[in-house]
């Protein structure tokens, strides 16, 4: 299995404060990798490094290397817009644009130059189908996306990310704001997407990590303490800190 993304000795600084301390991780193709750890330990920060979203934060400095398909994403020749097309992101709180469902999905392709109306229609349908939302919304593509339920909105955001045809999907606690049934639907969706996409998901819910991920990384205070096969890590963790966290004996 080939390597899709990799970081080497990644350090991240917010001004003087070191938020990520030497992260080395290799993310294999078509896997689901979950990032777990207590609040504020750096997992969301790390996730945002993978598509250079941290560039938007002032005073944020990165040392070390991040590779996508073997190429350094911070090389001067690298194209951020292209990177974000290939490495899509879904956020914790569903954030649909206040436009129609169609316009939401079409936003990404239009950004990258797609003008042909027929192609746009096809792309929107494909993305919504992949996200399991097509049948629910096909009759109201022109209605506002704000009228959808929370779970539908999140699937819309996933469809919106899929519409630009990425090969990596980054999800930052995608189900933490949703009810259990919507959560289950999204977990099922991620499992079907695994065949075609590499998925990295930050989650607070360890049961979720167990249910859907192949590999798990445990972050603590900016360090990646342990990284390995999910079932192995949850049954026989190598590091005591990992064991204390997953058995709830933290603090």
């Amino acid at each position, binding site marked *: 299995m080939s390597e899709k993304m990799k970081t080497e000795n990644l350090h991240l600084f917010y001004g003087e404060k070191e938020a990520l301390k030497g992260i080395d991780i290799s993310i294999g193709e078509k896997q689901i990798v979950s990032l777990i750890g207590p609040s504020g330990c750096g997992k969301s920060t790390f996730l945002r490094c993978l598509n250079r979203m941290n560039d938007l934060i002032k005073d944020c400095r990165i040392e070390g290397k991040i590779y996508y398909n073997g190429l350094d994403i911070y090389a001067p020749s690298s194209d951020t817009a292209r990177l974000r097309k290939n490495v899509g992101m879904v956020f914790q709180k569903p954030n649909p644009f206040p436009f129609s469902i169609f316009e939401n999905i079409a936003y990404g392709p239009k950004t990258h130059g797609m003008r042909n109306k027929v192609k746009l229609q096809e792309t929107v349908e494909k993305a919504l189908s992949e996200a399991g939302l097509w049948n629910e919304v096909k009759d109201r593509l022109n209605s506002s996306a704000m009228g959808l339920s929370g779970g539908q909105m999140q699937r819309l955001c996933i469809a919106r990310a899929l519409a630009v045809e990425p090969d990596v999907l980054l999800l930052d606690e995608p189900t933490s704001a949703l009810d259990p049934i919507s959560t289950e639907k999204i977990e099922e969706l991620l499992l079907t997407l695994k065949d075609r996409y590499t998925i990295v998901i930050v989650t607070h819910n*360890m*049961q979720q990590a*167990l249910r859907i991920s192949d590999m798990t990384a445990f972050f603590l205070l900016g360090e990646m303490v342990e990284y390995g096969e999910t079932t192995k890590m*949850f*049954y*026989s*963790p*190598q*590091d*005591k800190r990992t*064991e204390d966290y*997953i*058995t*709830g*004996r933290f*603090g």
Partner: protein
Amino acid sequence: MKTRIDEELDKLDLGTMSLSTLVEEALGIITSSLNNSYGKARIREIAQEIEEKGKSLEGSCINLLLKFHPVARDLKRISSTLCTIRDLCRIGDNSLDFCEMLDYLSSTEICNEIGLLDMALNVKKMLSDAISAFVSKDAEKAKSVEAFDDVIDKFFSDARKKLCAVIRSGKDGYEEAVDVVIGAKYLERMGDHAASIAHSVIEECGTVEESKSEG
């Protein structure tokens, strides 16, 4: 740091220990029955108590799995406790079956001939060691219990040979020899279950030790 699950697991351990006390009493009745002081009525009572307590403890284990979704060492602990409870219950069943076998015999002479009392005393000691290894999570002790199962197996195969000889010889009471073989088999089974208890202790401890040395 003691958490809710720790308290629940400690309660579970106490329950398992009282179950094991009942089972040890059952084995005591077997050894005393072979010595001709009979405890037939009592064995039925104990077997009933063992079954009820076993069910209730199993229920507690399932409950803990449901409530706490344990992982890592908590999961291993509940898993091994569940196995131990089931093994103890099987030993209780076997004890009842053994005593019922004795009912069919006119005398324990044939048992004494093949040294069944010795075998029973050894099984009783094996169980006792397995339980103390479980309580103190002593992997070394558990390993020696596991190894001792070979001795019990040898006892059984020797007993079987002797009983076959009795049957072939056509001596008086040879039909009873068949029952005694079955009884010996029950004892051997009890030895296997005691070894299984020891094995879960090794499983539980062994991997924790591995991770401790690597962590």
